[in-house]
């Protein structure tokens, strides 16, 4: 399957999808040194976003979350790319300053956890094996 979305930040990368149906707050919700989701009760709690194609509906929480993405990048623990249903300011600014490819406006409900996907943010497309 291939979908056309909208580019938030450029770049092309392939990797394993880590899918959340819940919003993500990077500040306070993700450990900036390890990339592990630490928000209590979050469906990804205990899992690492590091190197994954992180798929979630939209960001939430404090604007300081942009800097958390930047810190993850410098710690080598950032997601390889981010795919949103609807990107908001915190995630968008975080992706730009951390240079993480980001695409939104794609049907994320059709992306299954652990599948291989290709994010081509230059062309604003997402490709995946299944679905």
């Amino acid at each position, binding site marked *: 399957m291939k979908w056309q979305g*909208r580019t*938030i*930040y450029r770049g092309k990368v392939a990797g394993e999808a880590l899918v959340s149906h819940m919003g993500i707050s990077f500040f306070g919700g993700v450990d*900036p040194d390890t990339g592990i989701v630490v928000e209590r009760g979050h469906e990804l709690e205990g899992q690492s976003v590091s190197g994954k194609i992180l798929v979630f509906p939209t960001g939430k929480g404090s*604007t*300081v979350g*942009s*800097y*958390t993405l*930047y*810190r993850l990048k*410098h710690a080598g623990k950032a997601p390889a790319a981010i795919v949103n249903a609807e*990107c*908001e*300011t*915190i995630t*968008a*600014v975080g992706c*730009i*300053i951390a240079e993480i490819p980001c695409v939104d406006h794609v049907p994320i409900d059709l992306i299954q956890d652990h599948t291989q996907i290709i994010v081509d943010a230059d062309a604003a497309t997402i490709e995946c094996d299944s679905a």
Partner: protein
Amino acid sequence: MYLTSEEHAILAGKHGKATQKAMEILVALGTIYGAERMIPVTSVQIAGVSYDNLGEAGLHFLTEMAAGGGRTRVLTTLNPAGMDVENWKALDIDPAFAEQQKRVIEAFAHMGVVTTCTCTPYLSGNTPHYGEHIAWAESSAVCYANAVIGARTNREGGPSALAAALTGRTPAYGYHLEENRKPGIRIDVQAQVTGNDRLGALGKAIGTKLEGEAGRRKGEKPIAYVTGVVQASVESLKSFCASIATYGGAAMFHMQGITPEAAQWTPAQWAPPTDTLIITQADVDAAHRSMNDTISGEVDFVSLGCPHLSIREIARIAELLEGKQVTKEFWITTARPTKQMADMMGYTATIEASGAKFATDTCCVVAPVKGRFKALATDSAKACYYARAKNKFRTVLKPFDDVVAEALK
């Protein structure tokens, strides 16, 4: 989104790496919010200055932007830092923290930012006029600029405000557009409210109702048109703005007879009776009570200046403290230019002789005070929120003069 040839050139990196990054941020925000073009801004206020909030990553980003040739194109000022830049030792700030905080301010200075660290830039030289397009962060100042001054700004975050400073632009969406400044709900205040603490309680009562309305209206938060407030000082308005922004996420409101754009929207023009909410004395009292969760005997930290104190407020503190000794840690938080006025007038000497401390450039919200105190006395509804949420303090909300009296008890 339409970009001019100069904006395209910035985006292509022809004006350096930092300016390019700034334009990338603005284009992404413009894309997300459906802006058709960029508009020039003439003033910027940057948040995300305290090292307590920024951390190492934030400092690294700012250093990289400064090293990448970032240079402000318009008047730009800073939010409070995590310490008094000169007097940090007297406030028991950790020297390692002070070192990192200084590096943050140096990075901003390197980019040409005027490093007055204050949440009330409109009291110290960054004062836009009615209708002026600006890009401000700091939620209380955003609300003050939009509502009380009638300037036009969205609620920026740290990086987007910096991006506006380095390019002199912001995407044209939200509160920059006339149609988005229209009131959506009338709030009729049927209560007597005067003073910072009461206006703060009113801000909380209205803010809480706005959050409820947002739920009812599927996420869309209406702009409040407040009637029934007869008189308000600059000081009580800054308290109100801080509170309605903190508790209601509001970036804009109108207040009949007080804010400039209110005259364009008489309630008869737009407000059906169903879109009116009434705030009673009981509502204001309940909001006020909700910020008092301890007794004065427990108070070990007293602070005035959230938002930063005006010179008139400092004069009053000096009058109340003259010839007396405080018994508790008492922070007077204000902007450095205002402190310099206080120095000139002799207020500083009077206040410091009492044992109270100036915490210039900083405040009890952004300084690293967690764990140092148990209970805060303040006249600020906003300070109560952060004292509890961030620092786990209990709080006592009182009128201005009574807060000073609390420090003397």
